[in-house]
Every structure is written in C-alpha cells, then in structure tokens.
C-alpha cells in the first residue's frame, strides 16, 4: 500500500472514528457519573437505553402510536427517567453496604428491562432514523454528512451542559464533593441520595441520547444497543472509570481504534478487540490513560 493511499484512507477513518467515538463517550459519561457518585457499575445502562430507543420507535412509527419524533423522544425520556428512579430505588437499601451486591442488582434490573423489550416489541429488527435533513459535502478527503454534524452538535451541547452543571451549579459542587469523599459529605449534612438520584437520571438521559444517535448507523434490535454499551464500558475503562473528561476522550480513542481495527484487520472480531483493549489498559494504565494523578479505588 502506498503512502498516499494510507493518507487517503486514514483521514476518513479518523473522522468517522471521532464521530462514533463521541457517542461511545456520551454512553461512557453516563456510566462514569453513576460510578463516581454511587460506586456502582450500572450494567442496566445499555438495556435502559435500548428500552428508550424502542419506545421512541414504537411511539413514532405507528406500531404503538404515531406521534411526532420530538414528542416520542420526550415521552421516552420521561419513561427512561422514571425507570432510572425506580431502579435506583430498588438498590437504594444496599447501595452503601456493598458495591458488588448493588452491581449484581443492576444486572437483575438489566435482565428485567431486556425481557420487557422482548415482550413488548418482540425480536424484530427495525430502523430508526434521525429526523435531520439529508445533505453531505466534502472537505478535502473527508465526506461530512448531516448525521455527522448532528452527532457533533449534540455531543458538544451535552458535554458543555454537563460541564456547566458540574462546575457552576450547587448540584455540581455536591456531585463533585460526593464523588471525592462521601463520608465527609454526610457529616456535613449533604443528602447523598439526591446526588445519587441526579447522577442516575443524568446517566439514563445520556444513555438514551447515545442510543438514539448510534441506532441510525446500524439498526435497532433487542441486542444491538446493549452490546453497543460494551464500547461505552471500554471507553470508561480507557478513561479510568472515574474521570468524566477521561470518559469523553476515551470514547473518541476507542472509536478511532475500532475503526482502524475493522478496516485494516477484521470487522468480525470487534468485541474481542475491545476485550484486548480493556485487558491491556487495566494492565498498563490501571487508572486510565489520563488519570495518573488522581487514582482509582484499589
């Protein structure tokens, strides 16, 4: 392969890697927020996002109702938030006692949601598009589509919004305090539960947004979204699992690496590749690529 050929391939690969990486990052942000505040790895993240995406499909395609896309998304957000509150309420009795037991309980919630999706929507494979005008243009070797721009805009808006909330608002200060030292926060009279609830709600919203944006590139079925969350988990591990900027950057790195791998090596071993990425990261950068100084809980 010539050098010019490599350059011709690599720019589009980088670009599409960054676009899908943004979505992995958004998915990972939800996981990391829940983990930072309540020390629980939320294995129901993907299943909840899948349920939300199916609700949008069901309400907007006519299979349940035929609402407009916007109101379907609003309803789905409401349902996702309600489910997030309910699942936090379920594990609330054990969340301070055992990280591991709470993590197992989230797996149970995930199974229930998975079953619910299969019961309500069946095992169908459906398409769910974004309602954005279709156009695309070229910038050098890169072709940019309206979908790419939509993903970029939404991601930037979300990251910006989260940044403002976490850095500038009282809730954000409480969130940072709880993730640094929950005991001290409780001593100071901070309500840990409300901070937990905030992060679980944020996680549900982030997961649903990521799912709605990733589904147009493939299709929607009861398994695609939960397995898409493996990319989000990998992104979170690469970022150190307790760092929000790490999760975002990790998502983009994972997106680029996956694109390179599937183009140059094999598209059939993506999950195996991600497993390798996780194991290598845990071995050589146990606290994430970015988080040398802060350190995870060992």
């Amino acid at each position, binding site marked *: 392969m010539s050098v010019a050929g490599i350059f011709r391939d690599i720019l589009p690969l980088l670009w599409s890697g960054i676009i899908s990486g943004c979505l992995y990052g958004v998915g990972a942000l939800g996981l990391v927020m829940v983990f930072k505040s309540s020390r629980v790895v939320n294995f129901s993240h993907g299943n909840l996002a899948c349920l939300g995406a199916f609700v949008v499909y069901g309400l907007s395609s006519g299979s349940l109702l035929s609402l407009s896309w916007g109101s379907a998304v609003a309803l789905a957000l409401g349902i996702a938030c309600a489910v997030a509150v309910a699942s936090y309420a379920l594990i609330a009795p054990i969340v301070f006692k055992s990280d591991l037991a709470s993590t*197992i*309980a989230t797996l149970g919630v995930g199974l229930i949601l998975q079953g619910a999706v299969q019961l309500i929507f069946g095992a169908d494979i459906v398409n769910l598009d974004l309602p954005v005008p279709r156009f695309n243009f070229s910038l050098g070797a890169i072709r940019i589509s309206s979908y790419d721009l939509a993903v970029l805009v939404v991601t930037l808006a979300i990251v910006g919004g989260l940044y403002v909330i976490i850095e500038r608002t009282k809730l954000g200060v409480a969130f940072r305090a709880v993730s640094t030292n929950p005991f001290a926060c409780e001593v100071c009279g901070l309500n840990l539960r409300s901070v937990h609830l905030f992060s679980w709600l944020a996680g549900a919203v982030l997961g649903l947004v990521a799912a709605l944006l990733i589904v147009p590139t493939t299709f929607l079925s009861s398994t695609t979204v939960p397995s898409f969350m493996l990319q989000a988990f990998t992104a979170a591990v690469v970022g150190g699992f307790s760092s929000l900027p790490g999760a975002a950057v990790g998502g983009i790195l994972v997106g680029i690496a996956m694109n390179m791998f599937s183009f140059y090596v094999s598209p059939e071993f993506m999950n195996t590749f991600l497993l390798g990425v*996780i194991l290598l990261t845990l071995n050589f950068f146990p606290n994430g690529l970015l988080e040398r100084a802060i350190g995870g809980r060992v």
Partner: protein
Amino acid sequence: MAVSDLAHVSKAGVPARAGHVDLARLSVLALVAALLLLPLLAGGFLLYSLSLCFANALAVLSVSMLVRYGGEVSIGHSFFVALGAYTVAIVEHRLGISIAVSLPLAALLGAGAGFVFAFPSRRLSGIYLAVATMALALALPEVLIGFEKFTGGFEGLYIAQDLIPGVSKALQHYYIALAVLVAVSLALAHFRKSAQGLALLMAQAQPRAAEAMGITRSWARVSIFTLSAALASLAGALTGFASSTVSPNSFTFFSGVFLLVGSVVSLNGLSLSAALVGGAFITLVPTYLAKAGDWVPVLYGVALVVVTLVANAGDLRRFLPRGRAR
C-alpha cells in the same frame, strides 16, 4: 484483631454445633444416594435434564467460589464453560480421543485462560474485573463463529465417543456428571479447611494481615480466578459431554449472566445442595418455561434483584419512613 477475625471467618462455613454435624452429613449422603438410585426409576428426558443440571451446578459452583473467596463478580464465565466444552469436542474431532483425556485437559486449559484473563486486573477492585468479564462474554460468540475451522462455526460439533464402552449413553452422561460434581464439592469442602483456602479467605477479609504474612492480595485474586475458571471449564466439558453437542447457540452473552443468577439464587453456597439448587434453577426453568421464552429474563432478573436485596439489606424496616434511626 486480625487473628480473631480470621478465626471468625474460618468458623463461618463450618457447622458449629456438634449435634448438627451428623444430621447435615446424613442428609447430604441421603441426597447423593437418592441421585445414585434415580436412574432406576426415571429415564429419558429427565435423566438428560439432570445430567445438564449437574454440569450447570458445577459451573454455578465456579461462580460462587469466585464470589465467596474473591469477593468478585463474573458475568463471563460462559467463556470458560465454552472453552471446556469445545476442548472435548475438538480433541475428539482432531485426535479421536475420548473425555478421559479431554476432561483433565479442559480443566488445565481453563486454568491457563483464567490466569491470563485475571492477571491484568490483579491490582484493581473487583468492579474492573466485572467489566472485563462483560467483554469476555460478548467476545465469546465472535470467537466461536470466527474460528470456524476449529469450532465448526454456527453448526458446532458433535461429541459421540463414550468413556466406558458398552454402557448406555444416558447413564454414562448422568453418572459421570454426578461423580465429578460430588468430587468437586468434596474437594471444595476440604479446600475450605486447608491452609491454602484459609490464606485466600484471609487475603479477602483482612488484606493487610494477609500481606504481613506474605499473602498478597493480587496473588490471591489471580489464583482464585484461575481455580474458578478451571472449575468452569470442567463444567463446560461435562455440559458438552452430557448434551453430545456444542454450538454457539448455547453460549450467548446471557449464558454468563445466567450462571451468576444461579450462583446468587443458591446464595453463593459452595455445598452440593446449594450447587444443585443453582444448577436446577438455570437448567430447568428455561426447559419447563420454554413457551414463555421472553418471560425467562424477567423472571431471572426479578430473582437476582430480590435475592440480592434480601441477602444484603439486613433489617429492611430501617427504610420505612419512621425508621431512620441511624
């Protein structure tokens, strides 16, 4: 402090009152005797399901062992189960050798794979390991389908060779699975009282005390996972032998989660009866609820949540509106 805790931990699993020891032993003996005699009464499908049940019980034991000794959760043990099952199938196809050789080989390979897998996260909290096992579970179908030359792809492979020629297949499957399960649960009971078992428990309960005695936490983590993966692989070899076939259909992402469900439902117990409860739950529920297929994940999820809550919440009254007396 550390020593008294250790003594406490070491007593936890052993029946304390002398009068009850015999009763407990007798009931286990009665259970084994009943299972040994069962093929005289039952046949066909029930024997087949029970053989699978024993194999799954062993897989559940491997997950429970990881939880009990290591305090870690795995949803990817289906990988090691598949490794064992495919070892038996591939050894038979390529070399024409029966399970007499491939059963120990499966355990060895499982141990090796478990070591390689657990090594990178040796210094990290169990949560990282849990995430890595999720990747393991999702990578498994790809590997099984991708290496078609060895694994037979979507169709899988058949396992036809007998261990003891001349005995009916159903009886062989049943008795060999039962024998391995009983042997492993005896070995686990012995391991619980051995110096190695106590060392591993101490590394979990009192990491600093253990470290002072030269047992590092990372060594304990890796060795527990290695042992557990070897057991899972052994269970897989039995599963393959008992069902006479291996295919990617039996090793989806959810089979790893279901093993954890079985372990949680049996309260992570390491006894024969606990293993049988867990194994029966994950084998018989899908068989007898085959019509209500989509309800199975819901049922398992509910079981997982309820058992976890009840086992960990302690006094639930604390969460009633007036009970906030902390």
